[in-house]
Every structure is written in structure tokens, then in C-alpha cells.
């Protein structure tokens, strides 16, 4: 299966210009969504009919810390002016929604929080997601970013056949 990763602390703006460049909404995203967006760009950039709407691809995002980096930014904005632009990113599943919007994926999107990166548990959850009869492939990501500058960001594109073999 195809795998990509983004090194911790990488310049995400530079990476965006390299792998996408045509999606200015990127700059409004929190770090979790930016990482998910870029990982998916790297995974699917060369797919045929890439932007054809589809319901058969799931987006499954895993982490330990969820969206805590952005939660802290929102909490910091509360005393003066609670920021709606920050508040909407205070959910660990927004990244999966951003990936779905960009790529027109109308299938399942789910966000899971695990105590640690545990390959056996993560892939068991991915296999279980394929119980949905409609799901033929999935973008799977482990994106754990306790802050805006430190993260672990990996993603895989997996097909039903290879995951259920």
C-alpha cells in the first residue's frame, strides 16, 4: 500500500506550494487539517479522475492528542474575543472533513483517538471500517500534533482487497 509522511517541523507552506498550490483555504486550517490535507495530496495526486465525486472511499484519521494544539489557540482567544474561525477546528474530525471536501469524498469519515500508536489496534479498526459494504478504499492517517511545530504524520492509501486479504 502507498505510504507517505511529513517530517516533524517541516515548512508546511512550502510543502503546500510544492504539492498543491491551488487551494488557498489551506491557510485557514489548523495544523492537524494542514497535515491531513498535505498527506492526502501526496497520496492521491496522480490518481486518474481524482476529483470525480465518490462515495466508495473512506477517510479514517487517528491520533492521541486530537486537536489539542488548536484547542489551546482557541482557549487563548476566549478572554478577548472567542474566535469562531478557531472554534470550528476544535474537533479531531475536521481534518477528515477537509480531506473529503477537497477530494469530493462522500463516503465514511471517522476520527479515532488512541492511547498510543499501536499498529495492531489501528489496523484492526481500519479492517472493521471496511464492514461498510460501500467502502472500497480508504485514506488512513496517523496525525499526532501536540503543538504547531512537533508532530508525527503518516498516511496510507489502502484498498479493500489488500486490507481484507
Amino acid at each position, binding site marked *: 500500500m502507498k505510504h507517505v509522511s511529513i517530517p516533524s517541523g517541516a515548512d508546511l507552506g512550502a510543502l503546500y506550494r510544492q504539492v498543491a498550490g491551488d487551494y488557498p483555504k489551506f491557510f485557514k486550517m489548523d495544523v492537524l487539517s494542514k497535515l491531513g490535507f498535505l498527506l492526502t495530496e501526496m497520496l492521491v495526486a496522480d490518481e486518474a479522475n481524482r476529483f470525480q*465525486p465518490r*462515495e466508495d472511499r473512506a*477517510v479514517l484519521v487517528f491520533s*492521541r*492528542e*486530537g486537536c*489539542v494544539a488548536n*484547542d*489551546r489557540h*482557541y*482557549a487563548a482567544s*476566549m478572554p478577548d474575543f*472567542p*474566535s*469562531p474561525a478557531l*472554534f*470550528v477546528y*476544535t*474537533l*479531531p*474530525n*475536521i481534518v*477528515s*472533513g*477537509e480531506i*473529503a*471536501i477537497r*477530494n*469530493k*469524498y*462522500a*463516503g*465514511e*469519515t*471517522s*476520527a*479515532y*483517538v*488512541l*492511547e*498510543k500508536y*499501536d499498529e495492531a*489496534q489501528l489496523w*484492526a*479498526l481500519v*479492517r*472493521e*471500517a471496511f*464492514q*461498510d*459494504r*460501500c467502502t472500497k478504499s480508504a485514506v488512513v492517517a496517523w496525525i499526532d500534533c501536540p503543538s504547531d511545530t512537533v508532530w508525527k504524520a503518516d498516511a496510507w492509501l489502502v484498498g479493500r482487497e489488500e486490507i481484507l486479504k
Partner: protein
Amino acid sequence: MTKVFCTGCGVVTPVGDTPEAVFLAVRAGRSALQLYPARPEPYMASLLSRQGFNGPSFFEHIAIEAARKALAQAGLDPSGPRVGLVLSAIKGNVEQIDSEDVSLAAAAARIAAELGVTSQPVVVSNACISGLAALLQGMRMLRSGAYDHVIVVGAEVQSRFIVTGFQSLKALSLQACKPFDAARDGLNLGEAAAAMVLRAEMPGQAGHDEVTAPDGVMADTDRPSLWELVDGAVRNDANHISGPSRTGEGSYNALKYLLPLVNREQLAFVNVHGTATRYNDEMEAIALERAGLLDVPVNALKGIFGHSMGAAGILESIVSMQACDAGVVLPTQGFSELGVSRPVRVLAQEMPTSGTEFIKLLSGFGGVNGALLFKKGGAR
């Protein structure tokens, strides 16, 4: 496919601490919604009393209490390796963000330890559909064959973090919310915890022969029916991270996945999300029309509980099972005049039903939508 049954339920809500008490409160239209003072503006919410509580996390406290009640009803010892735990939560301990490890993973580990669960817990945090997605996750774990029982627990407590956030989005109503009503003007927040114990049908079982209720709880002839969680789906609108789809895309697609499994003659009602925001309720009406469900009774429970976020999917499903067992479709508290563009059958008054199935519907930020089909599985 392995059948999945609910063998125990537990709830912690401001209107009652057992499924039966909560059902009666909803039936009587008794909510705990009230206006709480706050700066810069007050908010209407359904909150739990903290009286007598002095532990580190009220969120974990209510989750544990709901799970324990469900375990007691199921008569299940949770310590075996084939008992799983799924936690549904959105913001968890966020009010301690400045001082503590507020990760939902840490909370789930503490909840598992307190309950005596020895398997690795999983947290489903899929915005406002978390409870429904967590139930679906529990079903999948059972169907994978790795578990015999899964405890699914959802909980949410309110905080300045959440209240100011929804205020900043101008999504809150200062009145008790009015789902699907012409005068609806926003949602109310709520606190609750709710849990279900799910069990896989054992090989050779018909699904309803080996379940024993705790001794002395009920006479044999008076036991409620056993409920089956048939299947569910999660679908994204692929449209906007905080605005519901104008075509009800994800909600319709989730319903569409379930429709071949539904016995329309037996479908008692659809219990919708019904937050009472202008856009959510309109979106759901469009999705119901596209799914051909305009003739099916529809109700929403946010006018009683407010929006209990991580608990909502589980709590509202438990109340819906109670209603179906009692042969009624519950009214939609706060609703009087239809205020959506499609003629959905939202009920202001209770009505009788002989139906044995219902659909639970939810939607959330991130463009995510979920639908789950429940079916009465036989005598318990």
C-alpha cells in the same frame, strides 16, 4: 453477518437516572433546560448537578456511572479480554486545558481502569455524531469476532470553552429550543452520559434465548424486548466543515445505505438530530424527503436534553427504544408549527405505534452524518 444486541443500558441525565425515568420525563415534556448566567451573555442549557462531587473529572465520573449501570443491567463482568470499550466524547476534560493532560485517550484509559476493563479502549470523536459512530464501532468490533461484548459509553460536560464557542458561531438560542419549528432560532447545550452494553449473537443462538436480566428486576412476562442494532452508516457531505449540506447529501446517503434493510411496515419513526438551528433541521427535512421517508413519524429530543454532544447518539437511542417498547412515538418538545420546506411528519403530540423498528439520525461539524437502524429482536 453476526447479529448485535443491546443487553444493558445506563443513563445519567438532569431529568432522570434510569432509562425508564428519562422516558417518563420526555413523555411528560419535562426538561431541565434553564437560563444560566454568564458573561458576556447567558445561555440556556440542560446541566447536571455537581452537588456532592469533588473528584478530578466530572466528565469521567458520569461516563463511569452510566457504564456501570449498563453493565449491571447486562449482568456482565467487564474484566475479560473479550470485552471491549468504546468511548464517545467530543471535548471531554477540555475545561482543564491549561493544567492537565486533557487528551480523550488518557480519559478513556482511566475510565477503562475504573470499570475494570482490560482490553485497549478506543475513542470515537466524530463531532456531534460521535455517539452513533461509537455504537457502529462497537457493532463492528463484535462482528470482527475479536470481542463477545462491547461497552459503548458517551458523555459530555459543558464548559466555558464550548459555550463561548457556540456563542461565537451565534448558534445558541436563549429560549428552550424548538426543533423543526417555524420560530426556531438555535440550539441549547446539554450534559449527560449514556451507555449500552452490546453483545454478539453467539453461534447457535437465535439471539434472544440466553440473556438473563439481573435477578428480581422484572417478572419474566414483564421483561422488555431485546433490541438489535442492525446496521449503520457514516457519510460525509463533502461540502463544508461547519455548514450543513443544502442537499442533505451525507444524511441522505447514510439513510440510503440502510433503506434496503428497513421493513417499512414496521418502521415506527425516525429520531432525527433536530438541533433547532435553521440549517440543520432544513437539511434533515431534505434528506428525509430524498430518502422517501416523508410519511414516517419524526421526532427530536433536543427540547428535553439540549444537545448532549458525545452522549446524544446513545441517550436518544435508549429513549427511542423505551418509547418503542411502550408503543409510542414521543413528541418533539418545543415544536408546534412546521418551519422547514419539506412536509416532514414532525410530531408535537405523542402518538401510538405498533412499529418495531426505528432509525436514529445525527449530523455534525466536519460535514459528517450518521444513520443507525434498530429493530426489536424478540422477548428478553
